[in-house]
């Protein structure tokens, strides 16, 4: 299996959770481009969830998989109801049924109990110290892809550019990949009886066009590029400034999607004064998500913000503000409209 993991370069992404507004434009950009086929109705290769939350599929982080001390960990398959989504609605009844305002839009069949963004904006904490943030989740195109290692058919491979890709012709729908993926970002296509996942828009990337989720983000919240491109923002955020961290590094797969952890306002004391010692999002919670390095990352973010507040200049803040949109994904800044797709 080792030869399937070629040690080439690695394409990577950084999401700034301080800028993500949970608008799902990335989710929809991906949906429109890649998951409109049969059996893909419930598939959302990228999905933004509210944190703290149970996510998609529900409680995905408790389904096992990944590695502990280098040993593959058993994982379980999510139930269809734990994914939810892909519902059919009673459009005919509402729009053509002649029932006026008596008919309202509702999913057909059993009432859904979960879906791709079910617990949106619920978050945690009590007023006035309630908190939440958004977390876009997609295939991490891991350096040690548990999916790839689990597949008995060699249907998954890692390209020279680090993209983890599935040969659908080799896939027979065994779903060991989905069991083994600790992030549960693989979707079984119940119609085609194969598994599917994010392809990092490789046909775009090969033409110098950034992935759709990256390019469509209206919040300038995501960077894209080679992890070893020392001039690029991804390298600077991950390696140089070390403010971008992988999700659940304890799963052992070495993800290549990174996150700038969310800063939060101070807590209110019961008497209405500000508790300047404690951020509203508990650091322990962020530590569980992003590992122990989150403390240093947050400290760096705060001190660089402070620097600019005091009239100084911060290269880190310049990157995070993203004055020039194209700089976020150079050299993959070709406009898809000006690109030949034949």
């Amino acid at each position, binding site marked *: *299996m080792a030869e399937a993991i070629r040690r080439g370069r690695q394409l990577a992404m950084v999401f700034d959770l301080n800028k993500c507004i949970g608008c799902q434009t990335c989710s929809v950009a991906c949906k429109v481009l890649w998951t409109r086929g049969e059996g893909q109705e419930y598939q959302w290769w990228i999905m933004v969830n509210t944190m703290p939350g149970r996510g998609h599929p529900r409680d995905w982080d408790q389904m096992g998989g990944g590695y502990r001390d280098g*040993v*593959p*960990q*058993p*994982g*379980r*398959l*999510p*139930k*269809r*109801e*734990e*994914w939810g989504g892909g519902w059919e609605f009673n459009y005919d009844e509402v729009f053509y049924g002649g029932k006026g305002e008596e008919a309202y839009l509702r999913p057909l069949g059993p009432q859904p109990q979960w879906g791709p963004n079910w617990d949106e904006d619920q978050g945690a904490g009590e007023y006035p110290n309630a908190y939440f943030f958004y977390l876009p989740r997609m295939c991490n195109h891991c350096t040690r892809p*548990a999916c790839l*290692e*689990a*597949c*008995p*058919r*060699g249907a998954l491979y890692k390209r020279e550019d680090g993209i983890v890709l599935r040969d659908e012709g080799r896939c*027979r*729908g*065994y*779903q*060991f990949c989905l*069991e*083994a993926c600790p992030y549960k970002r693989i979707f*079984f296509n*119940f119609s085609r*009886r194969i598994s599917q996942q994010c392809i990092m828009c490789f046909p775009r990337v090969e033409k110098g066009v950034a992935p759709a989720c990256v390019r469509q983000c209206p919040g300038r919240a995501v960077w894209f590029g080679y992890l070893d491109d020392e001039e690029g923002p991804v390298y600077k955020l991950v390696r140089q400034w070390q403010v971008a961290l992988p999700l659940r590094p304890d799963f052992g797969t070495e993800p290549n999607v990174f996150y700038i952890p969310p800063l939060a306002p101070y807590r209110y004391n019961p008497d209405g004064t500000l508790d300047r010692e404690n951020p509203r999002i508990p650091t322990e919670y962020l530590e569980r998500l992003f590992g122990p390095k989150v403390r240093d990352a947050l400290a760096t973010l705060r001190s660089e913000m402070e620097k600019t507040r005091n009239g100084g200049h911060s290269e880190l803040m310049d990157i995070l503000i993203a004055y020039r949109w194209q700089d976020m994904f150079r050299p993959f800044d070709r406009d898809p409209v000006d690109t030949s797709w034949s």
Partner: protein
Amino acid sequence: MRLQLALRTLLDPFRPQWERVPEEVVPLMRTPLHLQPTRYIRATWADRPYGVVRAVQVRVAFSSSHIFFRLQWPDAQPNMDYGDGTVFPDAAAVLFPINGDAPLLTMGSPEAPVNAWYWRADLSRPQNLVAHGLGTVAEAEGPELWAHAIWRDGRWSLVLARALGEGGATAVTLVPGMVAKVAFAVWEGENQERAGIKSFSGIWRELEIGQGRG
């Protein structure tokens, strides 16, 4: 007309004609854990029972042009599809070496492929599969296969059929008078059995290819 009649008749596992065909109970065992192709599968199934179907009742019948395998095995709950997402469709297969001495344990080898007639409860047609070793199963060209399966009273009854004759490069040749080697496998979908996680007959069994009159 005759051929169609024979096919239609013997494809039904409950036709009285099957009563006259001798039956052999073929014991099944789980596939060896150490031969599972990935570390993940070996790690996750080390402490999990699989190969839960322990025997298959086999009858083989011949028409003038076709060979029919009737397989019956117990299954309390049929799995017709992927269910709630945590089960797999029940499946069974009859396996042959394509030429001579293909190893059964490794599903053939690069030089000596094996041919499987693969039935799965969710597929409308059986598949003609070829394997050149573990993890290499692929659909391939071959003579047309027929299957008819019925689950009744806690038991699957499946008939798999194919025309006698040459198979070509990717299917077994079965001509009257020859002695073929054959093996069997069953996957219990409820137990998430799929791929190499299955019960199988352990060794090749010899089968004299006959020819019926009808």
